[in-house]
């Protein structure tokens, strides 16, 4: 008897629920977010001069063969910025030599100033067929990073960064009173 009453009550509850839902009810997601403070892992003093900014979007895809029906395919779009310039920790001790109104500067080689250049918080999934695993995401990220670095370090970009570096240092030393600025 009790069993029958419970089943009846359940049916009434489901019926009432369905009635309310189909009378214009909406499925609403109620969100809560627990904020865990940002933790500073390390702080480092640096002296890096950036002279060329290369902003890129990289499209990476992969296909994982499956035996049944169709292969898994994934494509993601990565956003990154390569900052070309000089890191003063690479500079020789006497990288600036002055004599009267002349200064001779030896700048370190132009390089990408950051180890990682991708902002993964802006990565977008373009296509997804199958279950994308962390290993696939990591592999695509690494490939995007290498492709971006290779493209950013083109001969033209290195030349443009070096020329801009020379122009900026020339300007800075002229404003300090030097008439002639030479580069090695």
């Amino acid at each position, binding site marked *: 008897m009790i069993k029958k009453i419970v089943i009846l009550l359940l049916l009434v509850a489901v019926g009432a629920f369905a009635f*309310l*839902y189909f009378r*214009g*009810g*909406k*499925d*609403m*997601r*109620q*969100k809560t*977010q627990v*904020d865990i403070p*940002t*933790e*500073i*892992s390390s*702080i480092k*003093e*640096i002296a*890096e*001069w*950036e*002279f*060329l*900014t*290369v*902003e*890129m979007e*990289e*499209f990476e895809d*992969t296909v994982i063969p499956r035996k049944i*029906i169709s292969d898994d*395919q994934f494509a993601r*779009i990565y956003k*990154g*910025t390569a900052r070309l310039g000089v890191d*003063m920790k690479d500079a020789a001790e006497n*990288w600036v*030599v*002055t004599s009267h109104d002349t*200064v001779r500067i030896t700048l370190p080689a132009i390089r990408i*100033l950051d180890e*990682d*250049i*991708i902002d*993964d*918080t*802006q990565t977008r999934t*373009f296509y*997804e067929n199958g279950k*994308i695993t*962390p*290993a696939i995401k*990591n592999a695509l990220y690494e490939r995007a990073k290498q492709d971006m670095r290779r493209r950013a370090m083109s001969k033209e970009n290195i030349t443009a960064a070096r020329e801009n570096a020379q122009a*900026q240092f020339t300007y*800075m*030393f002229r*404003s*300090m009173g*030097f008439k002639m600025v030479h580069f090695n």
Partner: protein
Amino acid sequence: MKRYGWLAILLAFLMEGCFLSKSPEEKRADVVMSIAKSARLYTVQYNVHKVLTYQDFSAIETNFLFEKISIPIPGERKIVLPMDAVLKAYIDFSSFSDENVSVMGDHITITLPAPKIEMTSAKVDYTGEKQFLSWNRFSFTEEERESLLKKGREKVLADMKGSDIIERSQLGAYNALVPLVEAAGFRRENIVIRFDQEMVDKSHDEQFLLKMIERDTL
């Protein structure tokens, strides 16, 4: 005959997978690239770690007897997504001019603009991701993860307002520029490096910080 009709439809679906879908190479989108000259001195680097969390539960919202009611559906889902980011503070020299340098005999004063902050990279730790799902809830989609990460990015940048990154950046700029000015023949005690104080005071204001970051990074 009807049986063959179904077979034809099934074959068409299978062939769609084999022949009609474009290869990933065909779908390859154009790579976007923009190059701009810049003149920035990065003076301090912060490596940060953030654990992003999110949880939700469903509820049916409806009208009953002219009253808006919300009936929660049992079951929830949660996600924990860790990420690491690198933030750097820099001095923008792109508008640096003679007006920023004042030489009086053997004394030199250099006035610099206030430091700015930029997130130079971020990496999501997908292997460290954890999901907790009730039996009646579906897994998080990639779009939901992307939305959570965008909010996380803003949160990390906003959290920097309470840090000492601006002060450290000023000190870093001093340490980077003094050897350069010394090499130009000025004595250390005769070198003054100062910052646009009004901008520095504003730098800890959250709205100002976010506006500054958006302009520079988005």
